[in-house]
């Protein structure tokens, strides 16, 4: 919808410069949020034909975490040069040696829609391996990832062990109840045993 000319709302601040510290961030999760920010989709003034996302300066790219034990050695990036038979590949560890900013940049590049704004949006992403960046004169606002629910792993406990634990708990509860009775209290609290779900 068109914004009426003359009414300049406060939400359109124009482009902000965001400083993002990538230390200990997981690659893909950071990349997806970066793609959203670069496209401008977190602003209510989003338009798909305008390039209004914020400029993201990412530092400490070489300290990004890659989860999964296999990725550093076995994740392969493929590309084809156009000549027959020239399907090239490079593994993640080699890619990090060559240029530690490349995995993040490729990840963000591939998470954004492939249209005419694709490259312009990528130009707003500047990734640096270290803490140093040449944008000290710009008004950089630090930006953190939105909080993330890290699921607790479901540990499979065999039924026999569960039963044994429950019996132990019952015995301890009975012992505690017996100890309480021997002290001469009036009423004992009856604890119902809950089935673990």
């Amino acid at each position: 919808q068109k914004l009426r000319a003359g009414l300049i709302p406060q939400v359109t601040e124009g482009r902000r410069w965001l400083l993002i510290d990538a230390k200990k961030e997981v690659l893909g999760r950071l990349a997806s949020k970066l793609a959203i920010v670069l496209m401008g989709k977190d602003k209510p003034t989003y338009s798909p034909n305008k390039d209004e996302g914020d400029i993201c300066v990412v530092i400490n790219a070489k300290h990004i975490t890659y989860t999964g034990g296999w990725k550093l050695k076995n994740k392969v990036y493929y590309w084809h040069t156009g000549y027959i038979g020239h399907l090239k590949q490079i593994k993640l560890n080699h890619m990090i040696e060559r240029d530690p900013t490349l995995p993040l940049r490729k990840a963000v590049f591939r998470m954004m829609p492939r249209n005419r704004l694709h490259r312009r949006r990528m130009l707003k992403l500047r990734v640096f391996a270290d803490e140093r960046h040449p944008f000290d004169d710009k008004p950089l606002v630090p930006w953190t990832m939105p909080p993330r629910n890290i699921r607790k792993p479901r540990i499979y406990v065999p039924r026999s062990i569960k039963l044994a634990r429950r019996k132990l708990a019952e015995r301890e509860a009975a012992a505690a109840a017996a100890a309480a009775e021997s002290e001469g209290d009036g009423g004992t609290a009856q604890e119902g045993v809950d089935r673990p779900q």
Partner: protein
Amino acid sequence: VLELAKGFRGKKVHRIARDRVAKALEHSYRDRRRKKRDFHKLWITRIGAAARLHGLGYSEFMHGLNRQKVELNRQLLANMAILDPDSFKSLADSVSSLPPLKVSLLMPFFLFF
């Protein structure tokens, strides 16, 4: 037909223009329907972004509005989010101050049989 072909790139000869104009009319027919979908999508994206600025997601926000029987449409909500962020904020606050729904766990088991 040649009048309808104004603005076309190079196809101003009657023979060629005939086909191109037919295509253009097809497109416009189809896109008049698509336009409604596209704008709906855009409004939803904008409302979602604005709701996230207030700590809610689009789904939570709309659910809360539905619970309160607020029947504002998305076009209005999206414009409100841009031009009148204070009233949008009050809507978002009313949603986040709603008590959570209690979901009874017993009912679904009976419904499955």
